[in-house]
């Protein structure tokens, strides 16, 4: 039991990092990205290749994941500077679909559909940290660091500037905000952090392939942020834990014939998502009432 729980918690922690980083884009900067799984994937592939080829040090690999993902986020920054709202959603969709195809085709980097197998157990400064408990601890530290970074940035003038851009771009400009630059920076920060999450994910699963970086995954991350509460610190964590643990709990429902478990689970899962949005539109941690 304990390993299962540790494993779930590790995944929940990794997704919390991912959701928190997406919240930087969606909640603070008003950049509606539905291509976040691509950057998650970039981090995962970069970190995994580093571990496979050089050294499976989780810290170094995470840094590599962050750098690669952060650097390539400029791809998405381009349309973000040109369009907003639903147009940007569509741009993200385009990137997501093209990105997935590239992941499947770039065999030498990603292993194609077959993926990268046998990612070595994680080490940290030469110590093995691959046991479920130790790895959870590593992930928790990464989560705390990411949250600290996000919190410090978002409470600084940088965060306020992002929020002002989110609320009204032209007014932000007229108070001296360099909108394109700030948006790009937000994009880089958010994607670099999700790159770390991706690397941790690769270590955790020891195997990655495109199936983990699909549109569904992007939407799942988005759902975590929205269900938890957009623009709040705790929201993405609550959302991540909720959406990952819920299906796990549903598997404990007795009396469902094994062939129907999946269907029933998915039904409850989907309905809950809709119902939650109807009754808690600003998320579990979001402010309710008012306008």
């Amino acid at each position, binding site marked *: 039991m304990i390993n299962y729980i540790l494993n779930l918690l590790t995944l929940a922690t990794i997704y919390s990092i991912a959701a928190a980083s997406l919240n930087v884009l969606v909640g603070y900067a008003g950049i509606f990205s539905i291509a976040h799984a691509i950057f998650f994937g970039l981090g995962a592939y970069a970190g995994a290749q580093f571990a496979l080829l050089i050294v499976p040090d989780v810290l170094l690999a995470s840094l590599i994941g962050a750098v690669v993902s952060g650097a390539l986020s400029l791809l998405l920054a381009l349309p973000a500077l040109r369009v907003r709202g639903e147009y*940007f959603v569509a741009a993200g969709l*385009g*990137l997501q*679909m093209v990105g997935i195809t590239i992941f499947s*085709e770039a065999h030498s980097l990603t292993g194609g559909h077959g993926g990268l197998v046998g990612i070595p157990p994680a080490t940290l400064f030469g110590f093995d940290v691959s046991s479920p408990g130790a790895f959870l601890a590593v992930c928790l530290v990464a989560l705390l660091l990411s949250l600290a970074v996000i919190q410090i940035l978002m409470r600084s003038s940088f965060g306020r500037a992002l929020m002002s851009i989110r609320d009204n771009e032209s007014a932000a400009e007229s108070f001296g905000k360099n909108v394109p630059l700030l948006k790009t920076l937000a994009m880089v920060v958010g994607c670099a952090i999700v790159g770390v999450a991706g690397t941790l994910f690769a270590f955790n699963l020891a195997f990655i392939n495109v199936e983990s970086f699909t549109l569904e995954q992007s939407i799942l991350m988005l*759902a975590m942020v929205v269900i938890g509460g957009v623009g709040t610190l705790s929201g993405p964590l609550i959302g991540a834990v909720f959406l990952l643990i819920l299906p796990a709990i549903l598997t404990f429902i007795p009396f469902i014939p094994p062939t129907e478990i999946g269907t029933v689970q998915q039904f409850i899962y989907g309905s809950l998502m809709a119902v939650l949005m109807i009754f808690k539109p600003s998320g579990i941690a979001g402010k309710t009432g008012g306008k």
Partner: protein
Amino acid sequence: MLFLQLLASGIQTGILYALTAAGFALIFGATKIFHVAHGATFVIAGYAFYECIQLGMWWPWATLVSFVMAILAGILMAVFIYRPIQRSEGSFFTVFVAAFGVSIAVQSLIQYFFGRGSVTVSSSLTMASEVIEGLYLAPILAVAIGVSIVLFGLVVLFLEKKNAGLGLRALSENPGLLEAFGLNAKNLTVLAFVIGSALVVPAAILTSISIGIQPSSGSKVMLISLAATIVGGIGSLKGAALAGLFLGIIENLVITVVDTQWSEAVSFFILFAFIMFRPSGLFGASVKR
């Protein structure tokens, strides 16, 4: 000849895209609701038709049932999902996530009742024969073209001749003001969902005949509809339909130049390019930044 053949299959694919995209564009254009569950409506319509045929119903009746089910699904979603969310602080993404939840739930319901595999309605319409040398066409292409032109014409006529079209445009601009005009924004929203959902029915039926339909078919439909809506220009029904057609044709023609595994990605590459260089789409008004 390969080119002609690809063009023909592109048109057939494109027509299906055009119909679903027009439905999505109509709903999104009028209500600003990002109706992700449009794909679910498509699947419901397809299965309704399939089940009726299985029960031995005459096809026009099955078609009718399919229309009823799709429209009903659209209305239920509009009234019970979107309306309550929009009434409170319904941000773009709240609606998005709720609609996504609905899609999952619908998909699992269909799985539960109709199984998980792909179902196909057999029909001789799909058998291709050589029309001129090297060009194989199936009667369903003609049916698709005919049906789509008629249906599309009807919708356009309805929107233009009746004031409903005007009402829907007004709805997209300012639902609150519509009430001040003494009109009912709720009813107009439902109308948008009725027409938009009805538009997917022929596409769903044609798909269930020519390709087959399965519970998870909805997501592709939704993605292409969304892409076509943007490429066509938000708010333009004609734009979305033409863009759908265009994407279908490109998807087929493109394999003369790139490997087949890229053909689907090309649609989205085009979408990306449009957003970068012509965000207003083919027919849209210029985009406010």
